[in-house]
Each structure stands twice: as C-alpha cells, then as structure tokens.
C-alpha cells in the first residue's frame, strides 16, 4: 500500500477513490473497519452475519461515494450506512423469526465464533454482548453509540438523524432497561 495514503486525510482518500484508486479505498476500509465492527457487532452480536453486513457497509459506501458532498465527516457518513444496514438486518431477522420460530429474537448466539482471548476477557465480552442483545434495538443503538463508539447524545442525535429530545428520552429509557438486564445477568 502506498505510504502516502496512510497519512492522507479523509478528503484526499475520497477524491482518490472517486478517481478509481482502489488503494485509497482500501485505506478507508482499514481506517474505519473497527468503527464499523463496533456498531455492527455491538448491534448484531459476534456472528458470521456481522461480517457480511460489515462488507456490505463498505460496498454501499463505495457505490454512494459520488453522492458524498463532504457536508458531514466521512466517519459520520459511514456510521449512518452501518446503522441503516444493521437496523434493516434486525428487521429482516425479526420477520424471519416471527415466521419460522416462536423465539422471536434477533440473538444469534448459536453462530458465535469461539474467542481466543483469555477467560476473564471472554467473560467480560459476554456480559457486554448479552446485555446489548437483550436491549430493545431502539435502545441498543443508543447504548452502542455511547458505550462502544464514545459518542455524546448530541453526536448520536446527529448520526441517527433524530431530534435531541428523542435521543435523550430513549437514553433514559435505555438506562432503566440496561439496569434491569445487568441485575439479571
């Protein structure tokens, strides 16, 4: 990979990608893959489907780059794509489970990949994943944005394109729901 792209700013990478430079786009993928993984895996769990959705996020980004006007930060733009695709996947799963199962859940624990980390870390990750998966998706996204991405309520409102009041009310309801879930875990 060109060393210059590693130091390049987002604007430069976008411009080079639009000019057809695949190396520039692969630098965007490398730069934001962890951020996308936090959103997708935080919302869907550590499943094989999360990998597919993650790929889909970057394919969608590539296809929509000509329409990216640079009004928002590239990270915000990618985050929006990731959230939209993740929420669509949750809806799709809900429809699927409501048709074929009484479980009615978007948990995919049976597909979880074995984690090579030590027991304590594995346990800690399991607590976070279980708590997130038990939350209503509407609240899960609010918690994931704060816990996994470190966004403030204002930034979350901006990314989700929701009024700040709505995010604040969901935030307090998510807080209540999370407290209950954590007590049971």
């Amino acid at each position, binding site marked *: 990979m060109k060393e210059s792209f590693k130091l390049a700013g987002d604007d430069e990478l976008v411009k080079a990608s639009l000019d057809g430079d695949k190396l520039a786009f692969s630098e965007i993928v490398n730069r934001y*893959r962890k951020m996308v993984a936090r959103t997708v895996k935080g919302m869907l769990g550590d499943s094989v489907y999360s990998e597919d959705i993650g790929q889909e996020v970057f*394919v969608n980004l590539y296809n929509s780059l000509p329409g990216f006007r640079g009004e928002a930060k590239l990270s915000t733009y990618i985050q929006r794509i990731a959230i939209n695709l993740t929420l669509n996947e949750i809806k799709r799963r809900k429809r699927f489970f409501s048709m074929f199962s009484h479980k009615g859940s978007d948990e995919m624990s049976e597909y979880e990949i074995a984690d090579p980390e030590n027991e304590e*870390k594995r346990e*800690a*990750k399991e607590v976070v994943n279980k*708590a997130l998966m038990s939350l209503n998706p509407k609240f899960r996204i609010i*918690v994931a944005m704060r816990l996994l991405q470190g966004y403030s309520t204002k930034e979350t409102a901006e990314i989700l394109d929701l009024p700040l009041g709505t995010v604040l009310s969901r935030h307090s309801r998510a*807080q209540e729901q999370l407290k209950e879930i954590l007590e049971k875990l």
Partner: protein
Amino acid sequence: MKSPEIKKLMRDSLDGKSDAGNIPGSLELAGISYDFNEGFTEKVMRRLSGASLTIVRDTEFKSSLNFAFYRIALTGAAAIIILMISIFIMQDSFSFNSFLGLGDSYDESIVYLLTGN
C-alpha cells in the same frame, strides 16, 4: 476486568457523569474490542472488483443492444422508403387505395370480389 466491574462501567456509561469519549478506551483496556476477521479488507476489495466487472459487462451489453437497434431501425426505414417508391411508380399516386393495392379497382368490382354477387 471482571464482570461486576464491566457491569458498573456499562451502568456508569449512561449516567451522564462519565466522559463518553473515554468509555470505549476503558472497554478496550478490559479486552473488549471489536474487529472483523482477518482478510476483511481483501474481501471487500474483491467484492468491489466483482461489482465493477458486472457494471462493465452490463454497459457492453447495452451498447451492443443500441447498435443492433440502430441497424434494424435503419434497415426497416430503408425498406419502407423503397416500398413507397415502388408503389408510387406502379400506381402513380400515394392514395390509401394504392397502399392497399386497390388503386385500379372500381368500387363495384370490390363488392363483387368480396360478396361474389
């Protein structure tokens, strides 16, 4: 970090007292990090190359279809013009009857031809 500490961190993350920006860092220190499997970037790039190839094939097919359409349309237009010229030469007019091949028939003879009386 043990699970009671993680639970406390999760609860505290939403109480508004803690700085939101520091929470992911604390989680990472506890070993909770998220990333895709190895070779993720390569898979994305392969998918993009596949998509570009499909677009190129699609464009090639459309341009071939356009070319074929123009050839067929031009041939058709030329055939119509030749037909009109030949009708004009044979019938000396461009009337509706001449187009139907009835240019030199009288109305009565048409009735005879159609009814047999």
